[in-house]
């Protein structure tokens, strides 16, 4: 079974809750799908048994010994990535989408595509099972593809080690890396918070979940910061066919646990939030 933890809005507590659920399991494959801000490895310090490089995109490079500065590539480029600087044709690397069109239409064959391959993904073991996580190199792209690679690796590990549950900690937002994270999962766990931003972002995320037709449960984290809004969240979630299954009070120990490189279950197993998360675990992962 694959469960993805997502939120829409950032900073609602996805990773802390993923870490808690992972600690409650005896054997799980934990996957950090937030590849350009991956954090779970900081808590669980997994071994690096396998390391893979990932081509995070390609960029056009001009060979100036062949370029005649005719400007044809500039006319074709739809990403404003080719500019004419006082008669010299230049690639603006950050804008290049790696579509290859300039290299294909250049009459002098002066443009080559150069791979960016600093991104990595890792697989190893941690105290509750196996862990896979990606790290996108600064400025590299194709987060969605890297998420796919990380998930393929996680599936292979689950099969190899006979582990039934794969828990995916997703990125914020609702764009390509999120869609790569939730494609084909069995359940979604949406972590939100009672703020106008939290509700707004949850609704957009639920709309995406509806497109994918995935069963979705909602946790309201820090619910007591604004209890009236928590009620509204529950109503909105119901309207999207999602159920609020837990309310977690605001709990400063989550941050203290993080600083000690522990999940809340490991750090403070007896507090109310830990008991609530245990119930969430039983309901979502034991079935």
């Amino acid at each position: 079974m694959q469960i993805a933890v997502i939120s829409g809005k950032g900073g609602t507590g996805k990773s802390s809750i993923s870490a808690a659920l992972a600690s409650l399991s005896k054997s799980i494959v934990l996957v950090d799908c937030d590849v350009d801000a991956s954090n779970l490895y900081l808590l669980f310090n997994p071994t690096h048994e396998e390391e893979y490089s990932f081509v995070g995109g390609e960029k056009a490079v001009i060979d100036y010994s062949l370029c005649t500065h005719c400007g044809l590539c500039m006319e074709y480029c739809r990403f404003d990535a080719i500019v004419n600087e006082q008669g010299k044709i230049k690639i603006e690397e950050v804008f290049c989408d790696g579509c290859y069109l300039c290299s294909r239409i250049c009459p002098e064959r002066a443009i080559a595509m150069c791979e960016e391959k600093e991104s990595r993904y890792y697989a190893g073991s941690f105290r509750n099972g196996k862990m896979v996580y990606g790290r996108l190199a600064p400025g590299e792209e194709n987060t969605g593809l890297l998420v796919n690679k990380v998930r393929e690796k996680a599936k292979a590990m689950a099969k190899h080690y006979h582990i039934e549950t794969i828990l995916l900690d997703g990125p914020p937002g609702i764009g390509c890396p999120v869609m790569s994270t939730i494609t084909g999962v069995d359940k979604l766990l949406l972590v939100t918070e009672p703020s106008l931003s939290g509700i707004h972002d949850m609704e957009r995320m639920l709309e995406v979940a509806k497109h994918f037709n995935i069963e979705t449960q909602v946790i309201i984290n820090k619910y007591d910061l604004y209890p009236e809004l928590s009620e509204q969240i529950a109503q909105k979630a119901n309207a999207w066919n999602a159920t609020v299954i837990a309310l977690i009070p605001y709990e400063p120990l989550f941050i203290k646990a993080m600083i000690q490189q522990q999940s809340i279950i490991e750090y403070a197993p007896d507090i109310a939030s830990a008991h609530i998360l245990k119930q969430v675990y039983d309901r979502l992962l034991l079935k």
Partner: protein
Amino acid sequence: MKIAVAGGKGGTGKTLVATNIFYVLMEEGQQVELIDCDAEEPNDTLFFKGEIMHHNDVLLKVPEIDTSLCVFCGKCKEYCNYNAILMIGFSNYIKVIEELCHGCGACTAACSYGAIREIDRLIGEVNQYRISQHALLTEARMRVGVYSPVNTVKAALKLNPEPYMQIIDAPPGTSCPFIHSVVHADYVILVTEPTPFGLSDLKQTVETLKGMNKRYGVIINRVDVPNNEMTDYLKKENIPLLAEIPFDRRIAEVYAKGGLCAQQILAYKHQFKNIVHFINQEICK
């Protein structure tokens, strides 16, 4: 002057800082525009009311294949680097998968049979509101179900040609949506939190900005006890610490209701004024 507010990790307080700085500048009567570039989850309009000035649809040119002219040579499929053209040659079957198309135009250039024409696909919208006589709020809003917010972000950044001071609320992460939001900024404010996660994502963001030759400073949000690891890192990298915003439940409560702490809590009005003042000094250095 363009100032971007970014941070790597989600939920560190980018929107809190961007909206409050915008409010302070607006109160001072400056010509200022707040641009919400978190097009996947835009929130800035929750904090301000204003009259709508512009509404623009963001469109992407995607191919439409006329199968009566197509000879199923497969060149368009070969040219497409995004696997957005599905073709089964023997069955004379060809289809565009619009969700995967980046609108690069390679297939159109590839086709020698005039079988491809381009149609507009709606991928997002840009709305601009007038908040006060001199202040505008521009929102990039990606359509739900679209893969990339980048074109919507670019459209929002381009909307206002006037020489307004711009405050750009950037999306989390360090990949393409972030890069397109900060690429034209003169200065980047990085908002982080004093946790191991905050520090790790801050480092990743700093490395990305170094590659772009940007100037930047850091605001640490939700400061409870001093975090030496964070301040040591800033010292080592010679990154200016612009401000520390205390951990204060009142800030979270005001924010949750769509309020501005610089408006509602006097102490924070002063703090955000100081932040603006300090950033001005940094930029002029």
